[in-house]
């Protein structure tokens, strides 16, 4: 980007808050400061452009409902951290990578083949009869049994519309 859409101070502030908030939740940002600051800038660019911080490394549609799964942190972060030690754009990394015990490389985007699996899981769960639906935060996996999802996930801070009915 030639023009700075977001000022340096805002980037620095957002970066610091992401780092502190995530550390307390057991998540680590990429230790390569230059790389991570660029990513944070892109998140803020997308926040301005779309109204939400869509993943900088994926093409957003600009319609929240269609981009829900790629709003950072995306629905795929945790699984990618488990399998590859980084999320798709490499904003988040595993403890090993943070400590420099493992390097970072490009990883495949699991977004396309994710729909089929969760649909199958939902069908399996519908067979159980419960007094309340069990709702799941697609970002961190938090489960709660209540009529409606909370405004904000109490564990990871994701918005209400990131919840799905799990059982």
């Amino acid at each position, binding site marked *: *980007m030639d023009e700075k859409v977001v000022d340096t101070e805002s980037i620095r502030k957002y970066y610091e808050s992401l780092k502190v908030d995530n550390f307390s939740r057991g998540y680590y940002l990429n230790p390569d400061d230059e790389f991570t600051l*660029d990513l944070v800038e*892109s998140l803020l*660019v997308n926040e301005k452009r779309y109204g939400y911080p869509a993943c900088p*490394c*994926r*093409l957003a549609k600009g319609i929240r409902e269609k981009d829900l799964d790629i709003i950072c942190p995306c629905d795929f972060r945790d699984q990618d951290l488990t399998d590859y030690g980084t999320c798709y754009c*490499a904003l988040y990394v595993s403890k090993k990578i943070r400590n420099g015990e493992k390097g970072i490389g490009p990883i495949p985007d699991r977004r396309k083949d994710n729909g089929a699996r969760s649909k199958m899981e939902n069908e399996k769960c519908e067979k159980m009869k419960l007094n309340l639906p069990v709702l799941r935060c697609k970002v961190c996996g938090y489960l709660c049994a209540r009529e409606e999802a909370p405004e904000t996930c109490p564990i990871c801070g994701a918005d209400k519309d990131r919840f799905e009915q799990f059982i």
Partner: protein
Amino acid sequence: MAYRDHIIQEGTESTETVMLYTLSTCIWCRKTKKLLTELGLGYSYIDVDLLDEDDQDEVMAEVEKHNPASSFPTLVVNEGEKVILGFEEGEIRDLT
């Protein structure tokens, strides 16, 4: 093919044509552009996120032909003779 007007040429084109599909916000795309420049390889690129919806659809149909996952960056050499997905540093260096 209206999107073609938005393709930007960097460096001098050699006998091999290198077409790079990117997002302006993607850091791996930026790394790829930088590496190609460092290697002295001329290339064309298009930042898909900056296009309007119709152009995006056209470009994505083109990207999908070479890369069904439609991920970024997608680097296409000589119209598909070779395709490099993501910032695969070794593969990109081998282009020289």
